[in-house]
């Protein structure tokens, strides 16, 4: 039993920290650290920078062009990115569709799709949810009918994150209505420039356009874009869901945001207010406990022993902590978080800001926005069902 990283791991961390310092634009980092809205270019520019270094696909094995890092190295890299204020790496390409392509795609599909993901050139989005199927994913109705070398896709997806920028979408589609709902689902990759696709961004409660409705109207998709076997898509989707583990807790970002909360408390003159301070202290304990939980999972993975089956716990706790962080930031900011000034949310505010500190501008919108974290990716209610199922059957 040991809490320390090895000297090699620590040296690795210093190396990646140094590289990030050299390559991350301080203005961009300031946007991230200040909780400002990021543009498509902010996100993709940084993805390309990482891609050029071979680090965008930092969880991939060497065989597919990844750096072949250990799970601990991956964690340390993620920590270094988070603490430096690097824009988030969108998971849809490198973390979600890529492992499925690696595991179930043909060599041809792997050659065709993986390089664009690893380089950050191709923007992917995820077509799972539908208006009628949220937690009950298997009830999805978007259908793909075979027509020669193509599937004809018709239906509607929703909550499709950043689809408005996407080049490709990976979709669960219904190819059969026989048997259980799960058995007739296929996993299809679709070019977003295909005729018949309509994307409508949905305005969220914080004013951002982060998710979309995506309609498919007789969209022709080459059968070459089918992953694995027809009607086996549910298996691949489950593989994908089980693939993400420790990172689901997002603890490195929580640590960074805790520091930000503490800075804000100092700025707002409440660092010595015992009540708010205790609330922050309690959250600090929560975050340390979450990090220990994550480190236990990593260590178990590294030692090759059966991994702790607590991904659902990480999702629940991580999301609740993110929400609480944003809630406390807003409370620390107080009534001066109430002005809703869009330019300030994008770092474009000029002139005096109400109350003098435009750092308060993103606090309430972020609090609003993060309500999503206990809803998406399998709501926390679904996660609690999973935990209970493991224990109680």
């Amino acid at each position, binding site marked *: 039993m040991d809490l320390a990283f090895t000297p090699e791991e620590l040296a690795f961390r210093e190396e990646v920290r140094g590289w990030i310092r050299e390559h991350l634009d301080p203005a961009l980092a300031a946007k991230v650290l200040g909780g400002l809205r990021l543009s498509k270019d902010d996100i993709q520019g940084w993805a390309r920078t990482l891609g050029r270094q071979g680090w965008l696909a930092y969880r991939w094995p060497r065989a597919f062009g990844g750096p072949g890092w250990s799970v601990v190295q991956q964690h340390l890299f993620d920590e270094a990115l988070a603490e430096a204020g690097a824009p988030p790496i969108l998971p849809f390409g490198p973390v979600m569709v890529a492992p499925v392509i690696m595991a179930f795609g043909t060599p041809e599909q792997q050659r065709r799709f993986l390089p664009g993901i690893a380089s950050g050139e191709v923007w992917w989005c995820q077509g799972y949810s539908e208006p009628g199927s949220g*937690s009950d994913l298997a009830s999805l109705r978007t259908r793909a009918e075979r027509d020669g070398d193509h599937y004809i896709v018709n239906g509607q997806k929703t909550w499709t994150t950043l689809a408005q920028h996407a080049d490709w979408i990976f979709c669960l589609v219904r190819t059969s209505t026989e048997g259980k709902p799960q058995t007739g689902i296929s996993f299809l990759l679709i070019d977003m420039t295909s005729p018949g696709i309509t994307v409508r961004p*949905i305005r969220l*409660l914080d004013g951002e356009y982060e998710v979309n409705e995506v309609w498919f109207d007789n969209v022709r998709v080459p059968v070459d874009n089918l992953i694995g076997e027809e009607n086996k898509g549910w298996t691949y989707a489950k593989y994908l869901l089980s693939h993400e583990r420790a990172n689901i807790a997002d603890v490195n970002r929580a640590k960074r945001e805790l520091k930000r909360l503490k800075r804000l408390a100092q700025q707002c003159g409440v660092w010595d207010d015992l*009540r708010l301070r205790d609330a922050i202290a309690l959250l600090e304990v929560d975050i340390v406990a979450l990090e220990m939980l994550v480190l236990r999972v990593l260590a178990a993975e590294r030692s090759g022993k059966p991994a702790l089956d607590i991904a659902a716990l990480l999702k629940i706790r991580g999301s609740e902590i993110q929400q609480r962080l944003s809630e406390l930031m*807003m409370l620390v900011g107080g009534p001066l978080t*109430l*002005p809703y000034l869009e330019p300030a949310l994008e770092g474009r505010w000029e002139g005096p800001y109400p109350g003098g500190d435009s750092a308060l501008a993103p606090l309430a919108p972020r609090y*609003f926005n993060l*309500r999503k974290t206990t809803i998406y990716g399998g709501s926390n209610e679904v996660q609690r069902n999973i935990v209970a199922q493991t224990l109680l059957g």
Partner: protein
Amino acid sequence: MDFDFSDEQLQLRDAVQRWAERGYPFERRRAIATAGGFDAGVWRELTDLGLPGLTVPEAHGGMGLGPVEAMVVHEALGAALLLEPLAHAHLASTVLQRHASAAAQAAWLPRLAAGELVVLAHVEAQARHRWDRCHTEARHDGQGGVRLYGVKHVVPAGDHAAAWLVPAVHEGTLALWWVERGAPGVRAQGYPLQDGSRGADLMLDGAPATLVTRAGEAALAWLVDAGIALLSAEAVGVMDRTLALTVDYLQTRKQFGVPIGSFQALRHRVADMKMQLELARSMAYYATLKLGEPEPQRRQALARAKVQLGQSMRYVGQQAVQLHGGIGVTDEYVVSHCFKRLTQLELTFGDTLHHLAEVSARMTDDAGVTA
């Protein structure tokens, strides 16, 4: 002990509800929010209903009604998610009646009753919820008048107001002042607030001001307490609607072939929302009925009320969004607007921790509503 509304109060409520249902549907509210957050047409309609003059004495052209009637009205308007700051009309009316000279009342109260918008401008930088940390100054102008210097923030519909009630320190004492729109040295810079309503910075750079009262601390204490009472009523209206929306959604939305309202974990969450709503409603009554008490008891009671309301608003708002799932975080559906409204009300007139500190500091050996 009686918590029934009189027939007159019920008629008033019905009239306001009728207006809200016909005159203030969600689509109109959305259009107003998009256009900036304050609509003069709506304000005229509220004036036609007599609402800005609700608590103005009949002698001054108002309806001469009291805090219970104000509660009834604000609960109904809360359910409509009204953007326009009607509460401030009542705050102005009551603070003038309590603190202004008869002459000043004769000059100003009829204007309130006639629908001129007068709002309190008391939020300052570096003060958070401490209204007594006032940096705005009132200085003699050497010609027998007084001029104000300072900046106030988050003033409700502040750039649409005909006049502002402004706390400012004069000769070392916090006093309350009346500042007229259009006077030199007055500038209001409007902006939208989180819930879609309108706010403004009020910049006072030698603005001529008329004294309302030298007892600024007492007047502000009243304004905050009366503001909490109105806010509580409004919040109950918002929460009532929020719970109804949630119940309706759970009965309608199906997953796994059944309405999600059949899942026990969600059902218990709804039960807890109902609990928070009824506790909040109880404390909204308490807040209103305690407004007439002497200052220490009133402050204690209103602080208690805000602590309950703050907790209830947070729980009901957050759970409503959660139980709605994805649709709950969109701007398109009404429930997120309820949530944002509740959040904004939580941060208004002192947040939960602020008032918990008040309850804690004022705690005595005693306990309960009735001794």
